[in-house]
């Protein structure tokens, strides 16, 4: 008969508060090189956007016709535009627009898409059917044209651009969250918690939402990059951000005329947008793996065998 009061219980009363899930996810994320680089680039861009006044070499709005269309030089690292404004400074300030467009689109589609997705996924039945038909209706709407229509009709200032892009991304997220919630609801651990007598809210918030996070994060990164690129397209069509606020999209749109005579003007915003989208995608991929608990390693891993 196995002796019940086995003496293997270690005496030291150490606190067994383990590293939280997010800490482990972060540790895992940093192990993925592409994601780390992406993360670094993004933080750099965010810092540049926040501290733009401090770090930008020149005033981005100041028109200096004498310095018009100068190639990259010591003074102007990436040259100047058709009004003699420094390209680097405009990219730094431009980050404010493009990144905030991306960020607000994420917030907007998250706050709209996730509740609808979770609700219709978990509750199901008629509510699910009606919500999904509404989502279908918006999903069938051609994304860029919906954005063009909203911006064109409500006026081209920033928040309208964001509303437009947010509205376009929300149904995609809602669809995805609903699918993940449906899958999560069938998981054994949800049945187990129900058996323990947990209330539906505890189940949704405590278990379903946390395990639905990973697909949401990936879709948000895709949404972010789509927003940055869409802002550029809208500016190209003349519906984007308002002068004098520099934005990557508008600078790219205005630089296309000089593609042959001042290529740096065209390449700088293009490469910046690509860099931003690439890094957000690598971070997204990295997060998808990092948020998967199977990749978490608590610090005690090495000693695992010892105490068996």
């Amino acid at each position: 008969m196995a002796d019940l009061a086995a003496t293997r219980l270690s005496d030291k009363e150490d606190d067994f508060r383990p590293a939280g899930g997010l800490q482990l996810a972060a540790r895992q994320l940093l192990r993925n090189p592409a994601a780390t680089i992406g993360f670094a680039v993004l933080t750099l861009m965010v810092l540049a956007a926040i501290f733009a006044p401090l770090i930008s070499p020149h005033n981005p709005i100041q028109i200096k016709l004498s310095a018009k269309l100068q190639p990259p030089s010591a003074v102007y690292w990436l040259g100047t535009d058709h009004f003699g404004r420094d390209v680097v400074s405009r990219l730094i300030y431009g980050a404010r627009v493009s990144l905030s467009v991306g960020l607000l689109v994420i917030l907007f589609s998250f706050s709209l898409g996730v509740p609808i997705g979770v609700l219709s996924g978990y509750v199901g039945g008629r509510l699910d059917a009606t919500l999904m038909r509404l989502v279908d209706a918006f999903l069938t709407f051609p994304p860029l044209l919906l954005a063009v229509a909203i911006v064109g009709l409500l006026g081209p200032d920033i928040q309208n651009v964001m509303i437009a892009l947010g509205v376009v991304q929300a149904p995609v997220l809602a669809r995805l969250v609903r699918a993940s919630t449906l899958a999560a609801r069938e998981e054994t651990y949800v049945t187990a918690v129900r058996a323990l007598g947990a209330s539906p809210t505890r189940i949704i918030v405590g278990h379903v939402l946390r395990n639905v996070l990973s697909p949401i994060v990936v879709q948000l990164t895709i949404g972010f990059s789509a927003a940055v690129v869409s802002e550029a397209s809208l500016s190209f069509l003349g519906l984007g951000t308002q002068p004098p606020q520099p934005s990557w999209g508008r600078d790219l749109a205005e630089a296309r005329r000089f593609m042959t005579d001042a290529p740096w003007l065209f390449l700088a915003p293009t490469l910046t947008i690509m860099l931003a989208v690439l890094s957000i995608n690598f971070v997204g991929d990295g997060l998808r793996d990092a948020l998967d608990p199977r990749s978490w390693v608590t610090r005690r891993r090495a000693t695992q065998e010892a105490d068996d």
Partner: protein
Amino acid sequence: MLFSPAIAQAGRRDLRVGVFGGDFGNFAPVVRYDIQGGLVLYNIFDGLIRIDFANRRVIPWLAEAWSQPDPLTWRIKIREGVKWHRGYGEMTAEDVAYTWRYHLETKSFQVGTALFPIDTIKTDGKHVLEVKTKRPFGPFPAVTMGYAGFILSEKAHKEIGAQAYSQKTIGQGPFMIDSVRGNEAVLVKNPDYWRPGFPKLDRIVMRAIPDSAVRLQSLMRGELDFMTHPDPKDVPEAKKNQKYTTLSTVGWNWDYQQFNLSTGGNEPYTNKLVRQAISYAIDREAIVNEIYNGQATITDNQIPEGFLGYRQPLLKYPKNGDLKKAQELMAQAGVKGYDVEVITSDKDWLRKELELVAAMVSQIGINYKIRNQDMGGFNNLWLNRRYQQHLEDITLVAPDPDATSWWFLHSNGSSSAYRNPKMDALLDGAREQIDPAKREPMYHQIVDMTLDECPLIYHCNVNFVQVYDKRLKGFVQTNQEYGQFHEATEWAS
């Protein structure tokens, strides 16, 4: 290569024209048309009068002659032997009466601009028309016969129906509409055109290409023979290119700022000293060089060269502005600096001009908050006078100073945001004065008052530029954006 220009030159009788914009709107002259529509209209219709651009005179065309038995009556002799396209018979005075009555009944866009003075229209036989005006109207030939100069064929209009007429338009000009699809309009030679020997070409294909750089590149690659509105920065390079002719003529248009003075509010710019200060702060030459790369001419008033009442481009404000004077005026007005919202439409060269102007006026403390609207949004705010200031450009068709002032300065002018009884009296008086010698000083007074009051500040007249294959001969350029007549264009043998 797709359309290589190497097709045998001598015999070529077709022309491929690249225009800006997205598509070709409607071609019925009784329904408002945009610029691309106008380019087609001016080649499928002959007007009652035509403008002799060389010495800025109105010359009789389908209206062979006209007389004014008394200040209120005009008798117009319609040219005989002019046939409508596609066998719709000969053009008669009845057609002109029908057209103008149609305009008046449907209250079309031309009523406000050209037909407002008309009281009664009567035909006197097949080819004479007698029009009575409510009040004497001097610029009748230029404005009424100019703006509303395109006449419908009554028979065709009734048979085809007003709607279909927009696309299957029947004119009597050198070319006929063959087909309109997507961004392309195809015109073919009108076999029974009343002027023998014209047109020299059998077929014109017009294609709307929105991006100016792409339009020029298409020309250079041989996909087009003729293109308009190149990007100003590419014009010097085009001029140097041996294979192409580049024409750049001063256009009857201008870029201008307008203040909304109709609200009766007390914004700082309601003080005319502030407006004058702004005009002094503007470096018009910088605008011409930076925005139009030299393809424009400076001006500070509304009467272009060759118009009745024209004196010289810069009457009061120096070409590079006068910052000191501007700062003095601001001090005089007791205005240190203020914010104002300035709207403009979606033309990207105008948006850049506004950014430049905003930089200039910031030197006297005025902060222009720019709002770029799309065309629909802009018109909505502009026509309903829901704006503080705006920057826009305007193109004019009739070579008469009335058309350049009345609408903008008269208290019930459709685009005016200015109320000044003295100005109204001057404008109406000049309009009704028949004798050009007496009208000229009246317009000098109007211009001087505009320069002083500054309800509008004029920047420049933008040139119309066309680039086309050097082997094309006979194309006559005009100061009008629509005025691209191709009846004389032909491939040199």
